[in-house]
């Protein structure tokens, strides 16, 4: 073997050694990035439940109660002239329409929220499909490697070594050179992509924390409003029958 080829093989060994560390560090970073994304996803789902179920249920009951109180207040009116009677009827109709108008606008927004959830579901499904594809690729790669192990163990490796000459060795060393260069370039690109995703995940995490605070404060506001509507209900109830 020429000295030049030996040097090239040794250089490749060094480059592979360095790349191994770099690539496996990337593997670790991918796991961390995915973990961070999963944490954000779980947090986003928690906030979704808080906003769409808990807080929404509370505000729905408030809306029912506030209009129930309004109807009772209107019902308490005792008109004495035809104009006053017409006022009572038209005001009752106005308030019913106001409620329905509000509900229909809210329904439109609910449809938009449902569309977003469908979009999110599709994206999660796509991510699952990508994971499934990755698993298939790794499965195939390991299957091939296992077959090759068996062949090597059964004498193929020894046969190839015995047949080795300068030309085949040169070809293999050159191929390794290209392979290592490709690995290094891809690993460097992956590292940059990972760091960008880390920053994005950190920003997303902060934004989720802010949203969580906002939803908690919204719940406090709802509870304060509940007290206000209950106070109104108590005063209205006293007009029906004082207990």
């Amino acid at each position: 073997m020429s000295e030049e080829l030996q040097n090239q093989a040794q250089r490749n060994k060094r480059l592979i050694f360095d790349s191994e560390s770099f690539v496996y560090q990337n593997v670790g970073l991918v796991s961390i990035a995915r973990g961070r994304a999963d944490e954000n996803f779980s947090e986003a789902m928690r906030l979704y439940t808080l906003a769409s179920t808990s807080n929404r249920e509370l505000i729905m009951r408030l809306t029912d109660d506030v209009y129930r109180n309004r109807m009772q207040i209107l019902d308490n009116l005792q008109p004495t002239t035809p104009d006053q009677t017409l006022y009572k009827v038209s005001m009752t109709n106005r308030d019913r329409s106001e409620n329905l108008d509000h509900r229909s606008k809210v329904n439109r927004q609910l449809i938009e929220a449902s569309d977003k959830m469908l979009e999110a579901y599709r994206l999660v499904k796509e991510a699952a499909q990508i994971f499934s594809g990755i698993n298939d690729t790794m499965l195939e790669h390991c299957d091939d490697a296992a077959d090759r192990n068996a062949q090597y163990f059964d004498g193929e490796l020894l046969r190839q070594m015995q047949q080795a000459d300068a030309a085949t060795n040169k070809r293999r060393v050159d191929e390794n050179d290209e392979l290592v260069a490709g690995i290094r370039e891809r690993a460097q690109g992956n590292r940059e992509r990972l760091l960008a995703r880390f920053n994005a995940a950190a920003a997303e995490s902060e934004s989720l924390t802010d949203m969580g605070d906002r939803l908690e404060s919204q719940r406090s506001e709802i509870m304060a409003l509940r007290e206000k509507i209950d106070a109104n209900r108590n005063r209205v109830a006293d007009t029906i029958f004082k207990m």
Partner: protein
Amino acid sequence: MSEVQRLNYTRLITCVLYEGGAESILESLYQRGIRETYFYSTRGKPIGRASEAGNLPEIPKTEVLHAVVSADQSDYIYSMLYHDFRLNEPGVGMITVHRLNLSSRLTLPEGVAFVSSLREE
């Protein structure tokens, strides 16, 4: 003796009026059915204002008004007082709202009526 009804949905609105004017606020609240109110005049000086003029003590105009209102009234009453009685302008006064734990309605013994209700009749 009947048990006093305790209300747990009330707020205490307090106005400090540097230029007085509590009576007209009381009138305005009364028109909205709010009777649990009172005010008093105070001595002292608002921050940043001299307590005397021409070596004579200033005649205090500051009045402090308290009104107990239901929780559903507090927001609109607060807003009404803040804007209609110029509490949004500097040097006129200040207004606060506090949650009360328990309150009871102002009721008089049987046979005794509010002067205002006699006036209405």
